């Protein structure tokens, strides 16, 4: 069984009296330890799909299983608990907590979500700081490091709880090309090291080529799937 199984999921938004269908019957399966990208132009439904997979939103119709759980039935608290255990997030704007140091930002999910012991926290955070090459900057605050470094910290924060899945919505949008490429490489390395599934959305054509599986979205519809070095499906 795949890590994610989506069956004909749709998402409607009510804007005033108008109902907008942001996602139109998407179906797909994602296996564990995949490196997947959803691509498409702005408004194609990438973020909507990531929000649904990340249990931040619920599908209007269809069935969505994440790590074997039907997430569409979760309440607010259950969703939060599920996310804390199974999903890591990387945001376009890094979204680090400005009053916490690099170390404390990475430690935050272990401390506030998983209530890990101080010993475990330190071991895990130091290991990830080393993995993302940020050990030297561990005592700096977010406003004292560069955008690329912030995103490396965000990658470490997303991985610190050992999640099954990391979701990254346009993780390179605010980075220059060289740094963006380095962040994607880092994510791939983390996938290899921790066997965590990475799903990211992007509309940057230079980054798109780094994904191993590519889902193409247009106007809320999943219009194609490409496997790196493999077959393409319409």
């Amino acid at each position, binding site marked *: 069984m795949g890590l994610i199984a989506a069956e004909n999921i749709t998402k409607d938004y009510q804007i005033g009296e108008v109902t907008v269908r942001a996602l139109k019957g998407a179906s797909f399966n994602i296996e564990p330890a995949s490196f997947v990208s959803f691509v498409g132009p702005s408004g194609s439904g990438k973020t909507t799909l990531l*929000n649904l997979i*990340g249990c*931040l*939103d619920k599908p209007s119709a269809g069935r969505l299983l994440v790590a074997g759980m039907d997430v569409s039935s979760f309440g*607010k*608290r259950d969703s*939060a*608990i*599920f*996310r*804390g*255990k199974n*999903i*890591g*997030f990387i*945001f376009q*704007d890094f*979204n680090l*907590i*400005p*009053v*916490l140091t690099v170390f404390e930002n990475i430690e*935050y*999910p272990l*401390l*506030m*979500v998983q209530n890990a012991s101080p010993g475990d926290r330190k071991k895990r955070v130091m290991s990830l700081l080393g993995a993302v090459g940020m050990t030297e900057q561990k005592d700096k605050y977010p406003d004292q490091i560069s955008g690329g470094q912030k995103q490396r910290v965000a990658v470490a*924060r997303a991985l610190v*709880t050992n999640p099954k899945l990391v979701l990254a919505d346009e993780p390179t949008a605010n980075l220059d090309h060289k740094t963006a490429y380095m962040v994607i490489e880092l994510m791939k390395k983390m996938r290899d090291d921790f066997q965590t599934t990475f799903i990211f959305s992007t509309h940057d054509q230079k980054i798109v080529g780094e994904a191993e599986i590519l889902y193409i979205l247009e106007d809320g519809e999943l219009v194609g799937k490409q496997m790196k070095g493999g077959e393409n499906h319409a």
Partner: protein
Amino acid sequence: MRNLFKIAIRNLMRYRRRTILTASLIAIGVIFVLVFVSVSGSFKNMIISQITGSMLGDMEIHRKGYVASIDNLPLTLMLNSQQVEKAQGAIKKIPEIEAYSPRIKFGGLFSNFVETTNIRLNGVYPDMEMKTLPLLASRIIEGEKAIKKGEIIIPELLARGMKVKVGDMIVVIATNKDGSVNGKQLKVGGILESATGPGGRDGYVHLEDTLEILRMEEQEISEIAIKLYDFGKLNKVANGLDADLGKYVNKQDKPIFEVHTWETLSPFYNIARMIDMMTLFIKIMLIAIVLISIMNVMIMAVYERIREIGTIAAIGTLPGKILSMFVIEGFSLGVLGAVVGNVIGVVIVYVLDLAKITFDFGRQTGLVLSPTLQVSDILVVSVIVIIVAVLGSLQPALKASRMEPIVALRHV
């Protein structure tokens, strides 16, 4: 919890200027309350101790109905010797009572052989009266600080008006309860400083001279003044004494005695209550200041950190923990304001105490204000501030905890 406090304090430091301004506002409120409570409390306590320590006593026992006619000093509503004995028996059973003094209060004429005027007099046993009214001696501004047989202590205004000095002979004339008039020549033994309040312009004579003036064969008493060791136990002792004396009834099955604390005997009690009311209003103002300033700051904090709230909610922080974060921030701000306010307030009160500010109250001049703060005052004000700070941060904190992460993350 420690980490929640760490985050809260860092967030307060993040908006340093705003935190300082809000904490200052709270601190000013706390200072204002503490200074007002200490100054008004000092004034109130000083006046109460003057009234109870130099005129009334802490409480008094009368025959039922006497107080209703107290302005006339009725000689027909006196306690007879058996009743006095019963009252003394009840008093002696109460260990909280330090001293008591039986008094005969009567009105008469005062003559310096040239002019005549009216006078209100207390016939007392000097030792018992001085023990019951420890500040009475300090009111004797001329002459020996004692009430001797054959002498009279007269109020200052009367002495001045009648041009009478210590050592002069005068005559007191009074009508007894049978209507017969009698007079006695007395030497002016002292001049008594006038005081504001009931009995503040009364003179004093020895009780045995009073019996003679009133031709009283069997001693009768107008009232018994009582002083307690601990003024704080006033109501408890008064209630106990009232209950004990309540068992004595007359032929009509009505109580013989009535017990009154100074509060029902002195009009200053209304001023004291007004001071208490003002203190209450000042505390309500403090609550309003804290509530509005904390709510304002916390609403701004939530509004400015919507994306941050979305982030921590997205990564799995439970709503309860988000609520705690903001409540702790409000709590910390309240504690900061309370601590700063208390420290500055205590220093101001200490300086005011050192300054020895004087004031006049009625006929009494040069009363020295000595404001003091009880630990309980500081605790009450601190608890009010902290509780209100928590309540003020509750609504913004609830708003933060109920935020949908997806909506919060989209916020620009």
